[in-house]
């Protein structure tokens, strides 16, 4: 594997995040190679979302570091990370609900459409704004939403809102795109379409890392998968290796057997993994 010699584009070393006495993420390691789709999975409560929030700068790590392009970015603010090219999306329909579809994506062009205060005031930013509009429309077209540009977001069905969330992120020209449960609440057809789009994003040269519960989608889509359990690393490898790893199967089945109350839910996860 030549890939292993390359420096990972995104890496966590001994990442730890505590909330009071609770250790949500415990000395967690992972590394994401440039140009791949990387999945982060684990049973409920394994610390995936916390990990995501630490990587994207919402929480500072209690201990350990995050490296982006080889630079230690632990504790940097979300907006600073975005400036470096690390863009995240959110679960559900986190959007500017009061804006039109196009205005949502225009906000996504925030970093690309720089202009001074007085040029905004005098309207001399018109060229950079026209360019921003163009790129915003291009980002909408990528997700097949261009015909909805002037609609208010609140009129959009759920599936389209999820697409729009990705369009906003893509408009920010990410180098690494962090997707937080991109397939949740989608029907199989929408999931299939979204998977195609995620692959096309990767083919544009964007590295994708995603947290997801839909095991089938993760197994089909990801080049590499990191499995975490109880806040720590369980295994990192190809979908094939992960699928047959006894520790992974136990994590999903075992935790379900151990806690009867949660039984059915855990079993669902195990079905997907098997």
């Amino acid at each position, binding site marked *: 594997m030549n890939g292993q010699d390359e420096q990972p584009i995104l890496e966590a070393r001994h990442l730890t995040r505590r909330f009071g006495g609770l250790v949500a993420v415990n000395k967690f390691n992972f590394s994401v190679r440039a140009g791949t789709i990387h999945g982060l999975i684990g049973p409920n409560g394994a610390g995936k979302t916390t990990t995501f929030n630490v990587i994207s700068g919402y929480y500072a790590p209690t201990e350990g570091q995050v490296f982006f392009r080889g630079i230690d970015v632990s504790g940097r603010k979300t907006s600073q990370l975005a400036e470096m090219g690390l863009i*995240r999306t959110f679960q559900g329909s986190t959007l*500017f609900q*009061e804006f039109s579809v196009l*205005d949502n994506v225009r*906000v*996504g062009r925030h*970093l690309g459409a720089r202009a001074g205060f007085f040029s905004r005031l005098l309207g001399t930013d018109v060229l950079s704004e026209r360019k921003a509009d163009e790129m915003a429309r291009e980002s909408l077209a990528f997700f097949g939403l261009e015909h909805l540009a002037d609609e208010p977001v609140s009129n959009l069905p759920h599936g389209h809102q999820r697409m729009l969330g990705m369009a906003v992120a893509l408009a*920010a020209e990410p180098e690494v795109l962090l997707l937080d449960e991109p397939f949740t609440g989608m029907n199989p057809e929408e999931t299939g379409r979204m998977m195609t789009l995620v692959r096309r994003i990767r083919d544009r040269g964007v590295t994708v890392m995603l947290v997801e519960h839909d095991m089938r989608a993760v197994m089909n889509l990801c080049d590499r998968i990191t499995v975490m359990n109880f806040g720590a690393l369980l295994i990192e490898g190809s979908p094939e290796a992960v699928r047959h790893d006894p520790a992974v199967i136990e994590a999903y089945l075992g935790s379900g057997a151990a806690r009867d109350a949660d039984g059915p839910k855990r079993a669902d996860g195990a079905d997907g993994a098997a």
Partner: protein
Amino acid sequence: MFLFAALAVLPYLLSYSQQEIAVLLVINVLLVCSYRLLTLTGEWSLGHVVIMGVGAYASALLAKRLGVPVPLSLLLGACIAAATAAVLSIPLFRMKGFYFLIGSFAAGEIIRLIWKRFTNPFGGPKGLKRIDPFPDIDIGFLSIDFYEPVNYYFLALIIVSASVFILYRIERSRIGLTFHAIHWQDRLAESVGVDTFRYRTLAFVIASFFAGIAGGLYAHYIGAVNPTRFSVDQMVYVLVWAIVGGTATFYGPILGVVVLTVINEIVLRGLGVDTARPLIYGAILILSVLYLPNGLESLGPRLRARWQRWRGGTVMAGGEAP
């Protein structure tokens, strides 16, 4: 055009005391417009009137103590108000929502205590008196005395119109879009690279600059300022103007301050129900919030059409006067 013509004719239709009210109204329009810019980011401050006071005190002191010519002192006073906001934003924007509201109130009270405590240079509880007025303009054929409310009205109108236009431009630019974005989803805005702290500070600084201009206009018109004039009671008026007018549109708060001032100062005063005035005023507020929850701006289009017809009439009548 009709609007400008109406504003130009207006003072000649008013009595002397009403002209004074018109001057204060113009100043309050700027105050409430600048306040709206701050509220775009979703933060409501209780210190805005104090910031106006910072502009007023600064401009007055610069003119009185340092002999800075008055129009320049106005601008410098506004810059000092803006700088005060920039410093205050460091602690204040660690808070959001309700906590920011209380924090801004506390910060305002601290500033007012400083004015009260330090008699030199702030004049203590009595404040500053005999503040230099705007210098008279006297160039032979043209002489303007700014003691006259009519003349000061036009001066304030020009400065306020220019300021309101700038505020409007800011709101319509990408800066305004970003302010709105922070209001509705600050985490999503952060995720695409918006430094929300910087933009909140920017909104606060711009709003404070124009509040400072309003303060300077006030100080050099009245000729005196004191800490009580910038107390939280006055802030409540600003909130009421903004809420009754509605904050969804740019013109909502302007509508609020104009309509409420006209009702309070002209209609109710004219009815001669002086002691019951606050009672009636309060009742009007409650009724308007109950029946117009989206503010007067939701009445906007209808009201405007009617007003324009009415104004068209006055312009023709007033056109022959000069």
